[in-house]
């Protein structure tokens, strides 16, 4: 059978010959792909890239021939696999190969991303403080509700503030006893809460809203309780050193959650969910990464400074917390801004 002109003749590949002829090209493609798989940072030279593209096209054509004329399942499957791998290499996701520069990320990308989504942050901080207002108002309305608001893991907060202050101020501060463990617990717990506040944004933001409001309620109850008992100085010296970093970090988690919620609703865009998510992925990672760093610092401060309740040091602690908060505000507002002439 030569099958060149007669349409009634079946057009069938001589598989052995075909495989023998094409196999070296397939093997070469396999080797090129293996090189890249083994070393993710391996950069192809221009000649290698051209060769990869040629081999990909040739193997694609072989796959079409195999499917059309031969129908041999295993070789087709092998070629499909090869074409799929080469395709994924040649059509990389854009922007993934940019070298990560930690300092630039921290001082430029993070604050710039934060500012780009300031509305989501405002919503996050607003929800939290509305929750705080609700908690304070509820306690003002009926003090007996206090134990209902305080969850079991914070049962020590059920103690009358003035009693706690009296007890804490008499205690010696042991730098090592349980401090590292406490610090680690705070870091991991708060980071988990922050990530959770972000990811629940996927459920159209409802649970992000609930989580922020709930945490706000708790803080509102505590603040009202201490202030109404005349322990404002203790409260500020206790919460401000770490809270000035910890709370903004949780707000940033909420900000990321509201960005996701906005993406889920897809307002003012015709893009599909997949495309909408691909636009915010980098921002989410930047925000949650920045928040996690802040929480590590807050965990250390809370364990080694906030719990040190010597009245002599209250002004220092409050000063430290205030400066830290001011620094954070300035950092998030101004860091990484382009100079006007550069922006133009």
């Amino acid at each position, binding site marked *: *059978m030569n*099958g060149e002109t007669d349409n*009634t*003749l*079946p*057009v*069938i*590949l*001589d*598989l*052995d010959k075909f*495989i023998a002829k094409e196999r070296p090209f*397939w093997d070469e493609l396999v080797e090129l792909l293996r090189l890249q*798989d083994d070393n*993710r940072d391996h950069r192809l030279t221009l000649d290698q890239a051209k060769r990869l593209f040629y081999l990909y*096209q040739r193997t*694609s*054509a072989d*796959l079409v021939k195999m499917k*059309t*004329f*031969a*129908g*041999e*399942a*295993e*070789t087709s499957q*092998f070629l*499909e*696999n*090869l*074409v*799929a791998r080469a395709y*994924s*290499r040649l*059509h*990389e*996701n854009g922007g*993934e190969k940019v070298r990560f520069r930690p300092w630039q990320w921290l001082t430029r990308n993070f604050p710039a991303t934060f500012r780009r989504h300031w509305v989501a942050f405002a919503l996050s901080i607003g929800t939290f403080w509305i929750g705080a207002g609700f908690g304070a108002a509820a306690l003002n309305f009926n003090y007996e509700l206090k134990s209902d608001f305080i969850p079991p893991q914070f049962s020590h907060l059920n103690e009358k503030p003035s009693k706690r202050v009296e007890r804490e101020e008499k205690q010696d501060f042991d730098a*090592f006893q349980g401090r*590292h*463990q*406490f*610090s*680690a617990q705070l*870091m*991991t717990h708060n980071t*988990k809460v922050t*990530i*959770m506040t*972000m*990811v629940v944004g*996927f459920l159209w933001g409802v649970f992000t809203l609930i989580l922020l409001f709930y945490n706000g309620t708790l803080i509102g109850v505590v603040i009202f309780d201490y202030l109404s008992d005349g322990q404002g100085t203790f409260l500020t010296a206790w919460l401000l050193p770490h809270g000035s970093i910890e709370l903004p970090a949780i707000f940033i988690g909420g900000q990321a959650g509201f960005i*996701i919620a906005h993406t889920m609703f897809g307002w003012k865009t015709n893009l599909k969910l*997949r495309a909408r*998510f*691909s636009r915010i*992925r980098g921002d*989410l*990672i930047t925000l949650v990464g920045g928040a996690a760093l802040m929480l590590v610092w807050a965990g250390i401060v809370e364990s080694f400074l906030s719990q040190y309740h010597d009245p002599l040091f209250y002004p220092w602690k409050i000063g430290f917390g205030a400066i830290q908060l001011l620094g954070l505000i300035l950092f998030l507002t101004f860091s990484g801004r382009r100079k006007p002439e550069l922006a133009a």
Partner: protein
Amino acid sequence: MIGRTTVLTIQTPEGVAFTIPIASPISRCLALAVDLAVILALTILISQVVQFLSIAASGIPLLNDILSDFGNGFMIVAQFALAIFYGIITEWLWSGQTLGKRLMKLRVIDERGLSLGLKQIIIRNLFRLLDLLPSNFYLLGGFSCLVTQKCQRIGDIAAGTLVIRETRPFAPQFSELMEKDENSFAAMPHLESRLRQQVTPDEARTALDAVVRRNELEPGARLRLFEALANYFREMAEFPEEITIGLSDEQYVRNVVETLFRRAAS
């Protein structure tokens, strides 16, 4: 379960379409079980090392205090970091595979068939916290897997990824399919030629597929299939009895395939 698909079909700009099999929820569960076991084993290993260091320092009171407290703190952080970063690091280093996925021959890919980016890996692993809800039972993720067309958990949807089954990355040797048997049809070239004229490409493909996949068939089904195929091809070109005597139906079809493919260009 709505409109579940078992393969991802990708049409390249070059006009080539290829399919990638999507992993089933069961195989994904097994891979997850392996990964959880690995995380648990690593956690135990780290705790043993920390414990050993504490015991070694027990003779020195201050160092002992520092080490035992620091050790406890380190354990908490390590446990958390393992849970979050195990998936991120392994999927990044092994191009979309964790140890469990390697064992189960699964791989995470971009849902458009492109290579997996680090951002996608981080997002799908962070969203695991949501998939695990409620109470670490993986119900949200499992439910999402069951109801989405491409068996994606929420993390996969957010990251634009899906988990596929890896196909065998080696080329089969066509000659091995024929098992080196003599083709008795070769003695009758004019009949072979008639057979080639009669058989359409689709029929040839069906016969070849049957030969290639014969070992996957149940014995009874295999007998029936080759009997039907052999009878079909016997009607197209009648080979004399001295050539076909003693040939099983399967051997008959193998001869047909060998005639059609191996010598097609001769």
